[in-house]
C-alpha cells in the first residue's frame, strides 16, 4: 500500500530542508526561497498527515493514543502552525524557532513507546481519554508557542537596547505583539495543563472502579510528574500576571516562557526514564528505530 511507504524520514527530511531555507535568510536574498520553503513544509505536512492517518487506521487499539503518536501529533500541530504563520507573516523567520522543535519532537517520537493505550476499552473511557490527550496537546503547543514568542521578545529587546537596526532576514514582530502572545499562551498552558491533570484523574478513577489492573496506580510517578508540571505552569502564569503592569514584567514573562519549554523538555525526558502503566510500554530500543524508518 502506498501509505505504508511513507516514513518518519520523509516528512522529517522535508521539514529539515524548510529549516535550511529559513536559515539561509541570514546569508543571502533569494526570490524563490519562500516558494521552496513553503513547498517543502507543505510536502512534509502532507506526508506527516498521511502517516498519522495510516497509523490511526492500522492500530488495533485506541488510534493515536501511544506517546509516540502524541509526539507526532504535537509535531504536526506545530508544523501546521509554522506553515500558517509563515504564509501570514512571510518576513518573520518563525521557522528558525519552530522547526527545530518540530524535528526534535519527531526524533522523540521515534524513541517513545508506540503501543496504543490498552486501558481504554469502553466508550466512556475513550471519550475521557481523547479529552485528556487533546488537553495535553493544547498545553504543550501553548508552551512551545509561548517559548518561541519569549525567545523572539528577548532577541528583539536586546537589539533595541543595543540600538542596532534589524538584521537582514531576521525581522522580529513588535514587543507589544510578542508580549500579548506570551501572556496568552502562558495562561492557556496553565489552564489546559490543569484541566488535563484533572481529566486524567477522573479517567483513572473511572478505570479504577473497574479494577485496579485497568488503571494507573495513584502513586505512579507519571501522576507526580504531571502534578509538578501543572504547578510550574500555574506559578509561571501567576508571576507573569502579577508583574504585568511592572516595568520588567514583560522581560520576566519572556524568561518564564522560555524556561517553561526547558521544563517541558525535562518533563518529557523524565517520562522516558520512569517505568509506568500510563500510555503503553517503555521506550523503544534503538533497533526499533530502523523499523520506523522503513
Amino acid at each position, binding site marked *: 500500500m502506498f501509505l505504508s511507504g511513507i516514513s518518519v524520514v520523509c516528512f522529517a527530511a522535508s521539514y529539515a530542508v524548510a529549516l535550511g531555507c529559513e536559515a539561509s535568510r541570514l546569508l543571502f536574498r533569494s*526570490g524563490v526561497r519562500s516558494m521552496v520553503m513553503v513547498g517543502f513544509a507543505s510536502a512534509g505536512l502532507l506526508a506527516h498527515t498521511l502517516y498519522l492517518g495510516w497509523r490511526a487506521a492500522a492500530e488495533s487499539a485506541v488510534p493515536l493514543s501511544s506517546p509516540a503518536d502524541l509526539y507526532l501529533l504535537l509535531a504536526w500541530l506545530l508544523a501546521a502552525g509554522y506553515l500558517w504563520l509563515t504564509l501570514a507573516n512571510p518576513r518573520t523567520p518563525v521557522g528558525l524557532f519552530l522547526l527545530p522543535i518540530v524535528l526534535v519532537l519527531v526524533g522523540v517520537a521515534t524513541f517513545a513507546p508506540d503501543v496504543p493505550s490498552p486501558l481504554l476499552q469502553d466508550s466512556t473511557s475513550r471519550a475521557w481519554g481523547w479529552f485528556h490527550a487533546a488537553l495535553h496537546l493544547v498545553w504543550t503547543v501553548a508552551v512551545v508557542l509561548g517559548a518561541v514568542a519569549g525567545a523572539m521578545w528577548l532577541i*528583539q529587546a536586546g537589539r533595541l537596547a543595543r540600538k*542596532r537596526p534589524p538584521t*537582514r532576514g531576521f525581522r522580529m514582530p*513588535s*514587543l507589544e505583539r510578542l508580549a500579548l502572545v506570551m501572556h496568552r499562551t502562558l495562561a492557556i498552558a496553565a489552564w489546559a495543563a490543569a484541566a488535563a491533570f484533572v481529566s486524567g484523574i477522573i479517567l483513572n478513577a473511572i478505570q479504577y472502579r473497574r479494577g485496579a489492573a485497568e488503571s494507573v496506580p495513584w502513586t505512579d510517578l507519571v501522576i507526580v510528574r504531571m502534578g509538578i508540571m501543572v504547578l510550574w505552569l500555574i506559578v509561571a502564569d501567576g508571576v507573569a500576571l502579577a508583574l504585568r503592569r511592572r516595568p520588567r514584567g514583560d522581560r520576566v514573562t519572556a524568561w518564564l516562557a522560555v524556561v517553561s519549554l526547558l521544563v517541558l523538555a525535562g518533563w518529557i525526558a523524565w517520562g522516558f526514564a520512569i517505568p509506568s502503566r500510563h500510555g503503553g510500554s517503555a521506550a523503544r530500543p534503538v533497533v526499533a528505530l530502523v523499523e520506523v524508518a522503513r
Partner: protein
Amino acid sequence: MTTAPASTATTLTLVGGSHRTVPLELRERLAFSTEQAAAALGRFRDRFPGCEAVLLSTCNRVELYAAGEPESAALEAASLVSFLADCRGLETARLEPVISRVQDEAVVRHLFGVAAGLDSMVLGEPQILGQVKQAWTLAREAGTVGPLTAGMFQAALRAAKRVTNETGVGRERTSIPSVAVADFAAAVFETFADKRVLLIGAGKMATETLRYLREAGARDVTVLNRTASRAVELAARLAARPAAFTDLADELAAADLVVSTTGAEESVVSLEAFREIASRREGRPLVVLDLAVPRDFDPQIGDLPNVWLYSVDDLAAACDANRKSRQREMPAALAIIEEETLRFMADMHHRTTAPVIEQLKAGWSETGEAELERLFRRLPDLGETEQTEIRQAFERYAAKLLHPPLVSLRSESRSGPPHGLVDALKRLFQLGE
C-alpha cells in the same frame, strides 16, 4: 512620434550631469521644470528631425538621452551640450567642463543604473524610478520617443525592478525619521493608532518624524512648547492637541512615544524627574526619540526598564549601518545591470540584421513559390490537400535551412553588431543593400 528606423545601425548618446559632477548652483540653473522639459523636447524635434530624445531632469541630475543615425548631427555630443545650454539660457563654455558625454553601450548601462537608484545621492532611493518613468512619458507625449529609446527605457524599468526584487539595495531605510519610526518605534509597538504621541518642541526633524508616525497610523498627538501661543499654533498646523509646558510631567506619564526637539541648552528631563514620572506609568513601555542637540533627556533614562531612548547619534549610527548594508548589495545590483545591458545590446545588434534576414526569407520564398508553381503545372492531377502538403514541406525545408544562419547571427550579436556575418550573407546570397 518619430519613426527613426531601428533596423539600421543606430547610435545612442547621452550628455548631462549629476550631483557627482555639476555644482549645486549650476545644477539649479540647468534643471528643467515639466513645462520647460516639454518645450525643450519640442525644440529638439524641430532642430534634429528624425532623431529620438528623452530628457531626465531631477533635483540631482539633468540628462539628455538621444538616438539616431550615426551621421546625425544630434548624435554629436557638442551639439547636444549646446542644445542644453540654449534651452536653459546658459553659456556652452560653462557647461563644457562639468557635462559628461557617453556613447552607445555605456549609455544603456548608465540609464539602467540611474533607474535602479545606483547613481542616486542616497543609494537605492526609489523616487528616481518614478522620475525616469515620468521623463519617458513626457518624451512620448512630445513625440521624441522612437523604437530605440522606447526599448531602452522599458528595459531600464525592468532592470530597476529586478534590482529592487533581487537585492537589498533599496530596502533598508537611511533617513533618521524613517529609521526612528520603522526600525525602532514600530519594533516596540504593534500599532500607533491607540498610542499617545508627544511632541516636545517642533523642529524640522520632529515634524518629519510625525509625518512617518501619521503614515503608520498615529492619531493622538500632543504638542508641547515653552511658549503657549507657539504650542497652539504648532498644534493647529500639525492637527494635534496643544499642551502647556508646565504639564510636561503629566504628559510624559500619559505618553507612549515622545519626539523631542527643543533648543534647550540643558536636559529638559533629568533622571530623577523621570523616575518619579515612571512610577506613574504602570510599567507601560515608552519610546523616546530625542532628536535635540544637546539632548533633552538624560541618557541614563534609557537604562531604565521598558524605556527605549534613542538620540540623534544612535539613529544616525543605525542609518549608517543601513547605508553600509545597501553598499554591500552593490555587487549583486551591478551584476544585474550588466546582465540587462548585455541583453539589451544583443537585442539591439540583432535588430540591425532584420533587413538582411527579411531579404533572405523573401528570396527563398520567391524561389520556392516559382518551383512549386512549375511542379503543380507538371502534375495537374494533384488535389488541393496534396498541394498544401507539398507547400508546407517546402516551407519547413526553407525554415530548417535558414535556422543555422539565424542562430549564428543571434549568437554573434551578443558581442557587437554582426557586420562580418551580414556582409558574408549579402555576398553569398547576392542580397541588395
